[in-house]
């Protein structure tokens, strides 16, 4: 879809950068430096002014893992499918924390940057995209801790570990897609702001994070599989613990569902973005 007010002049234009018809991707490439600087700003601001700085990236998943191990593992005694409980929770919590923080940041990205939206032109999709990039830093830092888990629990190091960085790609796309859709919706409907944290809370329980999908009765498992996060989270777990009984069919559903969500979200975003500055 064109992001232009009008086609070019009929005479040969000298430069026609800003008003020319061009695809989203080409225009995004044009604005890559803005994209970089906005992401850089958010990362910088995130770690400036915090006493613990980068440590926060480790503290959040680590302590959540501890609490989950005690509450869901020891007290509620939910199965972890034979995987050591700290590993079981931590391997799912890292991608989950990435996903949930992206979703809430991306969902708010347009509204909280209304100053930029009403004063300057840039491809609006840059804002949710930035929001999807910034929590990735936390994910990467958290991933370093995996080495500690592997050493402590003496987990076999194999090819499956190569899946870990690969799986983040569809996870980023899914979080970005949903986030962009929510962001566009949030500009128009201000109650989205309240719905996002609530939705994230529900999603935590609808995704096999505190339980393995094997505890769900066979005939209801397809419901779980409809959630594109299910396949991804389980595959993340498998990447760390190859003995984990992963359902590959879940991942096989996840990937196309993710693709559909991303395409639909971006289309919706593109369709509504022209009005953002007027209503934000």
């Amino acid at each position, binding site marked *: 879809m064109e992001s232009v*007010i009008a086609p070019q*002049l009929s005479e040969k234009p000298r430069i026609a950068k*800003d008003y020319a018809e061009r695809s989203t991707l080409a225009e995004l490439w044009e604005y890559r430096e803005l994209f970089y600087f906005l992401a850089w700003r958010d990362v910088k601001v995130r770690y400036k002014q915090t006493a613990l700085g980068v440590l926060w990236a480790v503290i959040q998943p680590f302590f959540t893992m501890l609490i989950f191990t005690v509450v869901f593992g020891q007290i509620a005694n939910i199965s972890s499918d034979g995987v050591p409980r700290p590993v079981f929770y931590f391997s799912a919590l890292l991608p989950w924390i990435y996903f949930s923080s992206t979703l809430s940041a991306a969902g708010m990205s347009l509204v909280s940057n209304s100053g930029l939206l009403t*004063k300057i032109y840039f491809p609006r999709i840059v804002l949710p995209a930035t929001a999807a990039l910034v929590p990735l830093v936390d994910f990467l830092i958290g991933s370093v801790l995996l080495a500690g888990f592997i050493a402590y629990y003496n987990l076999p190091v194999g090819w499956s570990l190569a899946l870990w960085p690969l799986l983040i790609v569809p996870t980023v796309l899914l979080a970005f897609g949903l986030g962009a859709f929510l962001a566009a919706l949030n500009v128009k409907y201000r109650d989205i702001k309240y719905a996002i944290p609530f939705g994230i809370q529900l999603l935590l329980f609808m995704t096999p994070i505190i339980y393995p999908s094997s505890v769900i009765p066979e005939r209801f498992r397809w419901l779980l599989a409809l959630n594109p996060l299910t396949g991804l989270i389980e595959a993340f777990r498998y990447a760390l613990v190859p003995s984990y009984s992963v359902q590959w069919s879940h991942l096989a559903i996840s990937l196309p569902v993710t693709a559909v969500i991303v395409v639909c979200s971006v289309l919706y975003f593109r369709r509504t973005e022209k009005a953002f500055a007027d209503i934000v």
Partner: protein
Amino acid sequence: MTRCIEVQALCKKYRIGKLQHDLMLREQLIQFVRKPFNRGSAEGDTVWALRDVSFHVDEGEVIGIIGRNGAGKSTLLKILSRITYPTSGAVKVRGRIASLLEVGTGFHDELTGRENVYLNGSILGMKKREVDRHFDAIVDFSGVEQFIDTPIKRYSSGMRLRLGFAVAAHLDPDVLVVDEVLAVGDAGFQKKCIKAMDELRSSGRTVFFVSHNLAAVENLCSRGIWLDAGSIQMDGAAKEVILSYMRSFASGQLSGSGPLETENRLGNGEIRYTRIEYLSPDGTPCGIVRSGDPLVIRFHYRAPKPIRDPNFGFRIFTPTGTLVTEAAHWLHGIHIPKVGPGEGYIDVEIDSLNLVPAQYQLSLWITGHGGALVYDGDLRVALDVEVTDVYRSGRMLDSRFGLVYFPQRWRVTQA
């Protein structure tokens, strides 16, 4: 000369109903459940911010856009900048367009001056190597070099402004769109900014410039476009357009004084107001009344017969008829034993007009001896108060900020 901007039959419609409250998905769902086939009934009243605006611009022209509040100036700039889109019509632009609708867009408090220069530069469309190349010049222009590695939350508003403008002054676009940024800062800084704009002009760039500072428009611009109620009222040489614009204010007051002559009013007609003038403290007519400016309101009257113990007063109403204030000279303990016969005038001197920008109405009255009403104009004279930067911070005070503002200082103390 090559044509670089072509604007054709531009129209922009805003829905005011939707702007007044945030739309809730909940309400839409409820509406959908009630009337599933009645789409879009939530639409409120519409307002045309621009109506059929067409013009074209050649390379190297510097165009000043003038007009009153709500004439559509900002909307036009926003459409040119691609921030908002026209309801109908087309804009064709050749070349890189940079818009400067605010100084320091995207500045982040936690980041240092240096970091913000890069961030702001990239937001305004500069490449990193362009910022690299101009960095020293930018810092030099801003005059904040000692603090360049300090987080800008420690900057004064003046420093922030200078840094923001320094970045903007080093933009190198083919077309620059500037909104009222010169109205900020101290006189020395304004001079610097005007010089920077002048350099842009002499290097053959096309500049669009919206300002209430008519002197700046006259100095900088070769051409003026006067917008009124969303349409082009006049398009021509800057000097002539400004002159006609100023005259429209004067004639606006004349049309105000016209009905003053009619007999259709309360009171016994022993004395009446004949004309109202808005003056600067030096006694020259001010074309534009702005928030925070000193203002002299001169009430001309004519009394065929002498009037004993007159009391002159006026009320200021908002456009919707709310009384903002009433003033009368006897409140000041001043006693005028007698006026007339003949003509005269009364000056009301206001040090700082602390009305928030809007189109106010003045209603005038005079009472005579014993408080008997001798004149009460049911006619109201317009008082258009324009947007300005009353706090000298670069932040504009506009009609969203209520009816009045009051002089104040802020001091932050932390335990």
